[in-house]
């Protein structure tokens, strides 16, 4: 009996400690425990937001806090969002974001093509200048831009926010697209050129279909930037009927008294964050792949 046990346990004792099944199991369990703990910590603020947005006032002021409100007060959403023109804010934001996405895609495609697929004297110097503009903080340009747009009569319109995107001023997007265009074999373009295709034709018919992942990344980045942008609208817009959500959300704060506002404020915040998060779930693959492809190579 004792002998049999000794024989059965011998192989395990001969294994190094780190390879014994029990050790591996414990290590695995600890790893998952840590991941779950980290996950809860990182999701915590958003779960807290969601949970509060569904609470009644008395549930909000319970100590210790409750995570799962019962009953769920869904009506916080319509009540909060109708207290301010949230629909108008959303419409403004969408118009701005879509305009900016169109601008960024059109202009940066052309510019990146010029930097990546055509060999011309002076190209590299121009490209370095283009890249170096990434280092210039917005604050340096902010005041003259404001004054220029003021003189043009563009204040309190979306022109200062959209027009520059059509002129490819975001060098980061140009850079990402150029890097992607460089990975496309030049034989493809050469063959088309031999067939008498113009550069614009090559761009539209050969390069763009291949560059969809990179275009999706840039579209998404620009969309998220526009949805998130606070300081731009803050500087250029001053009528509330033009406000994007970023400025509009602050209007909610002025509506509700500090101690009564949390469910409403969290409902409005959830409504602000939800579209971006939902969009991410739809394009997640393209996005992550795109960053890996265009991110850091070269």
């Amino acid at each position, binding site marked *: 009996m004792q002998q049999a046990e000794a024989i059965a346990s011998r192989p395990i004792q001969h294994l190094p400690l780190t390879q014994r099944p029990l050790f591996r199991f414990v290590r695995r369990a600890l790893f998952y425990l840590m991941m779950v703990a980290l996950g809860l910590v990182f999701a915590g603020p958003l779960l807290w937001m969601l949970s509060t947005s569904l609470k009644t006032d008395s549930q909000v002021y319970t100590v*210790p806090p409750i995570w799962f409100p019962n009953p769920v007060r869904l009506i916080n959403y319509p009540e909060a969002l109708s207290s301010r023109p949230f629909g108008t804010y959303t419409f403004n934001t969408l118009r701005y974001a879509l305009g900016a996405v169109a601008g960024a895609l*059109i202009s940066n495609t052309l510019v990146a093509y010029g930097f990546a697929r055509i060999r011309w004297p002076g190209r590299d110097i121009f490209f370095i200048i283009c890249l170096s503009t990434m280092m210039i903080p917005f604050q340096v340009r902010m005041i003259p831009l404001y004054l220029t747009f003021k003189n043009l009569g563009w204040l309190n319109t979306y022109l200062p926010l959209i027009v520059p995107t059509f002129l490819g001023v975001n060098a980061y997007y140009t850079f990402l697209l150029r890097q992607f265009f460089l990975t496309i074999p030049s034989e493809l373009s050469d063959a088309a050129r031999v067939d008498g295709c113009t550069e614009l034709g090559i761009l539209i018919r050969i390069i763009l279909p291949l560059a969809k992942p990179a275009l999706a990344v840039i579209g998404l980045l620009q969309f998220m930037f526009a949805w998130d942008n606070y300081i731009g609208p803050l500087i250029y817009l001053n009528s509330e009927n033009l406000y994007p959500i970023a400025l509009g959300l602050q209007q909610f704060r002025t509506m509700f008294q500090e101690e009564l506002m949390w469910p409403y404020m969290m409902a409005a915040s959830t409504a602000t964050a939800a579209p971006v998060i939902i969009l991410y779930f739809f394009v997640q693959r393209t996005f992550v792949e795109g960053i890996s492809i265009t991110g850091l190579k070269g």
Partner: protein
Amino acid sequence: MLQNWTPAQTRSLLKGLAFISPWLVGFAGFVLYPIAASAYYSLTRYDVLRPARFIGFENYIELFGKDEIFRTVLGNTVYLVVLGVPAGLVVAFLLASLLNREMKLRPLFRTIFFLPVLVPAVASAEVWRWVYNTNYGVINSFIKSWGLAVIPFISSMELAKPSLILIHVWAQGTAIVIFLAALQDVPSSLMDAAEVDGANALQRFWHVTIPICTPAILFVMLTGMIGMFQYFTLGWLLTQGGPNNSTEFFSLYLYRNAFQFFKMGYASAQAWILFIIILAFTLLIFRSSARWVYYAGESD
């Protein structure tokens, strides 16, 4: 010069310029001109109502000589960059390394760590205002129920900056994605070789994984540093520079001078100081990078 070129070269030049023409216009109008104008304004007194009046370097002299708030602002901003950027970077790298391991539910965990960066700054300001609430916020509520003293996160001078850094550390999604991509490029042959040589997991992480990822680390560090020097929205919404100027950062003070006090010349001078500081930090990081960034291509 132009006459020495072959017609083909001239044609390709024109083609190239045609394609980059949107940028040429944008660069001239929305980058070059504003930079030049800003440099000029920084040497003037300009309240928008009356024309700018040239005053030489007076704005700069006032900023460094007399403006005590500006000194505080500089200190606050450097604090934020020097502590916040490395903190965010380390957390992002560790999370990415964890996500890079074999595990169940990896897409779920990846999404959880990525989500915070998707939340618009205005919304995350409100969420954190509520999380940090001293009476009923999720943290203090628990602390209270245990009978301990509440933490005055954003209402105390000592904790306001660390509290903002904590929010930054929370929203590291972009860096995590970049690091994950870099981690997937770590050749498994190298890891195996290190293992055969008797390196334990920690040694492999330190001597193989991190060196291979240094280009990505450099990228995240540079963009993080440049972004952090321009930190605005969360500070503006959450603490408005307070309490007692402890979160008055560079961009906040600059915005205040430009658009609340209408001291456009004074604010322009600040913008140039910011530019020069960012440039100096960029050079510093680039200079040092020769010593710690490892490029796989170099050894070939």
